[in-house]
């Protein structure tokens, strides 16, 4: 049965409360996982594990958080910014994320900000919706 976006959001919220030890009120659609909610690298795997259980889905490695694959590659990163081909790959790998702001200044240090609560909800909805 397809889930509504609200249902998905509520469950994602529960997952993030458990995985990151944050309060429900701290979580909003726009909240970034690293900046606002204090997630570290191991938390991303924790979130993936919990989402798989909560929604009974399989999340292939790097499908939800694919940025690491880009970082070490000179074709994709130049002078601390994503190149055009890096940007194209990111767009292809993150169809569930709004990249319009990031595209104006594709600083790799800001790549963590791309992972928002909304991007997770969109991703999960794509799997269960």
């Amino acid at each position, binding site marked *: 049965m397809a889930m509504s976006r609200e249902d998905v959001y509520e469950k994602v919220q529960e997952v993030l409360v458990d*995985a990151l030890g944050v309060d429900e009120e701290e979580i909003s659609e726009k909240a970034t996982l690293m900046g606002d909610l204090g997630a570290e690298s*191991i938390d991303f795997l924790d979130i993936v*594990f919990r989402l798989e*259980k909560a929604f009974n889905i399989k999340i292939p*490695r790097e499908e939800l958080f694919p940025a*690491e694959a880009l970082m070490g590659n000179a074709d994709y990163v130049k002078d601390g910014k994503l190149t055009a081909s890096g940007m194209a790959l990111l767009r292809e790998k993150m169809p569930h994320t709004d990249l319009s702001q990031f595209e104006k200044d594709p600083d790799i240090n800001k790549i963590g900000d791309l992972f928002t609560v909304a991007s997770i909800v969109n991703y999960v909805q794509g799997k269960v919706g």
Partner: protein
Amino acid sequence: MRWIWIDKFLEFKSRESAVSLKNVTLAEEHLHDHFPGFPIMPECLIIEAMAQTAGILVGEAKGFKEKVVLAKISKAVFFHFVRPGDQIRFHTKIESIANEAASTTGKVMCGEKLVAEIDLMFSHIDQNLGGKQFPKENFVFTDMFMSLLQGFIKPAEKSV
């Protein structure tokens, strides 16, 4: 020497669950200082004992090829003190396991009493996303650690 905070395994179901046991005794010197006149097993060591129990379970699931290190304490809630003379059991099960990491849940019991709930995450450090290199030898699963599993897995399986 490596500190080992479990005495033996009681159950070991490969890739699923394990139960280990520890006898707590005043012969453990740190209890004399923690605290003078009121010895209790430090809660950080209870977490370490759970990490050893669950870490061996996670390591065995991948044939002890991975270096399994504790990466995150997802939950640690304590309900009772553990005192000298207590025999505590660490019940743990694997919730999720992937190439890079594993998550486990666990309960610490003293008789029928629930002492603590401890959920952990382990990282397989050779699979880290940063591509960092670590020594080749598996410094996590040393012989002393492996001896705990005698009787539960065949010797040949250890080196696979």
